[in-house]
């Protein structure tokens, strides 16, 4: 069976939703925090409902709806989401009120919307979709878990048109806590210049990216999702894991036209990607986290990015770290290699349909 990405949509720190250009006018940020660009939510959500919804729910619904619209699918066969932090802002609000109001006279809204499955269930509610609905909340593998679930549903022939997404938000409290934990850089940087000023720490991001998976071939499909592999705390060199992953698909490093890495500007963690230029000597090397920032489900943006590279048959200039040795080579096979804090590693292989 082949699995295809019929459509993909993303709300991110770039103009990615409903945009005519593929990252042709990248937005730069100065600091260590990349907020998502808020789309016009009225296109996707009843204006009365918008006011009650938190940032993460709105981002999630907008990306999911746009994915359905561009995929031409009214009712998905399943909805699977991944989110490490869930509805962080509502959780923070309710938690703060418990403390400030000493457990009295608390309004319920923030609690109601704090559960991690809120985005997936709100999409189901809007569509009146009774189908399979699941939410994975496993740190830097949340989106990969969700994607695996979606792929298995297709393999099991349980459903078609599986809506799979990765969503995470950042708020002031989480930015402060993660900064104190040393996740982000101590000095502000220009985001588009991230890789030229290596130092400890990364830049934080947020966003919502969805894909529609199908097993039906169509000229309208964006790309084929050939394989996915996640590895928890690897005990052997990653280059060997990549080779094994590619070999299972009958491929070698030389067959890969574009290798996308999850480089995030943190010298400590980026060293893990150092094998890439040598191993993929002829491939285009591209990065994406200077565009969307680092967050546990940033690989969902990576998937959106990879699928669009194949669809558009080009890699946006802003994302290219190294050009291919053979300039005429099109992006037929794209490998996305991401790791989150060297604990969760994932490989996703995409191919032109």
């Amino acid at each position: 069976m082949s699995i295809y990405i019929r459509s993909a949509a993303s709300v991110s720190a770039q103009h990615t939703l409903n945009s005519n250009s593929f990252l042709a006018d990248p937005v730069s940020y100065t600091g260590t925090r990349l907020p998502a660009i808020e789309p016009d939510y009225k296109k996707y959500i009843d204006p009365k409902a918008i006011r009650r919804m938190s940032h993460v729910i709105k981002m999630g619904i907008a990306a999911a709806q746009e994915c359905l619209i561009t995929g031409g699918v009214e009712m998905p066969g399943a909805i699977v989401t991944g989110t490490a932090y869930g509805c962080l802002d509502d959780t923070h609000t309710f938690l703060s009120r418990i403390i400030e109001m000493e457990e009295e006279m608390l309004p319920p809204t923030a609690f109601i919307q704090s559960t991690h499955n809120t985005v997936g269930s709100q999409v189901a509610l809007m569509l009146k979709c009774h189908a399979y609905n699941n939410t994975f909340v496993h740190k830097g593998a949340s989106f990969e878990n969700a994607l695996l679930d979606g792929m298995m549903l297709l393999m099991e022939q349980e459903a078609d048109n599986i809506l799979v997404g990765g969503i995470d938000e950042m708020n002031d409290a989480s930015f402060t806590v993660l900064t104190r934990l040393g996740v982000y850089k101590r000095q502000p940087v220009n985001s588009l210049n991230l890789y030229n000023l290596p130092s400890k720490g990364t830049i934080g991001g947020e966003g919502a990216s969805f894909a529609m998976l199908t097993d039906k071939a169509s000229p309208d499909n964006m790309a084929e999702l050939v394989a996915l592999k996640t590895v928890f705390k690897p005990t052997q060199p990653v280059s060997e894991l990549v080779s094994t992953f590619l070999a299972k698909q009958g491929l070698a490093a030389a067959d890969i036209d574009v290798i996308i890495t999850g480089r995030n500007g943190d010298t400590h963690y980026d060293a893990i990607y150092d094998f890439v230029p040598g191993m993929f000597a002829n491939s285009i090397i591209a990065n994406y986290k200077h565009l969307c920032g680092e967050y546990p489900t940033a690989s969902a943006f990576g998937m959106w990015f990879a699928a669009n590279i194949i669809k558009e048959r080009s890699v946006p200039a802003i994302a290219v770290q190294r050009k291919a040795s053979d300039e005429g080579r099109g992006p037929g096979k794209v490998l996305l290699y991401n790791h989150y804090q060297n604990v969760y590693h994932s490989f996703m292989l995409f191919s032109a349909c």
Partner: protein
Amino acid sequence: MGLLVYIAGVGVISAIGSNVAENLQAFENEQAGLGDITQMTTRHKGSLPVGEVKLDNDYLAEVTGMSVETSRTKLLSFVAAREALTDSGVENIPGLRIGFVSANTVGGMDKSEAFFDEFVRDSRKGKLRKVFDHECGSVTEVVANKLGITDYISTINTACSSSANAVFFGARLIKNDILDVVVAGGADALTKFTLNGFNTLMILDKNFCKPFDEHREGLNLGEGAGYVVLVSDKVAAQLNKPMYCKLSGYNNSNDAYHQTASSPEGTGSFMAMQGALNRAGLQPADIDYINLHGTGTPNNDSAEGTAVKRLFGEGHPAMSSTKSFTGHTLGASGGIEAVYSVLAIKHGLIYPNLRFKTPMQGLELIPQEHLSKGKNIQHVLSNSFGFGGNCTSLIFSAC
């Protein structure tokens, strides 16, 4: 694709006992684990009864060898997962691909609450190690490390149906030949966050809950953890012991009605139960016992009861809500109740639904009132429904 997934081991910790034997003894004694809050500092102490695990963090840290600074959810998770893994005997077989799929709803919230107590007043304050493991996935990651499981780990959070979905997803990882063994279930400790959250929704009973009773007034929150060890048919053949039972059916459907309330007809519940029966190739009459979601809230029980009535008709199977013993353990409930369902088959038990007096008007459903032993139980249906309309049903069948 492998066809059958067996249950090779079980482990549980709840308000009625810190292992399988103690839980069974409490059912035998018809002794609920509900009572006043003792482990948590809260304004609601003494006014809202809960199903607490009767062991403090110092004790749990000592028996698990984990830090007392760690989230109680991790301590509970490890106790039950360790029991299940040891019970299964899979560790004696080398070379198996073993996964850990664990659910919880609020991660290390008990410790985050302590952090935020200082942080809300001054964002430079609060000990970072208290918030470091806030994420749901951290609970699973720490416990997986301690269990020595590295092949695949995952965390699911679909509110109160979370761990039923973990069992379901674990079985599919085996059927898709990604893993040979999955320790699947979930854990949740009582927190101020969830206690106050459910309290704002005005669905907590100030007395002990009365699931499926006409005069029910809400749920009691509980805490604990429950895990089953799922194995492929190949592993089952290698294990030199009888399997408890098999997981024959499962379904996840969405009510798509409201963020927190169930539809009056119980659409999602009905679809989940019907879908699980279809998967198992069974008729409603084949089910010998239903372990109800049965929280004790007016809304859940009437929706679930309506769906049960519609699916099973007049002659409904024996049914009960074991939440009348444990309270509603949220992300742990699907795992704990999966363990009870498995034990019902193994020991021929139908658990009582404590404090039931009057059937719900218009439904006339009579749950089991006292423990019934020595039954021939072939098929058990276990329901878990959650916020966001997430409805999941599992069916366990004798081998």
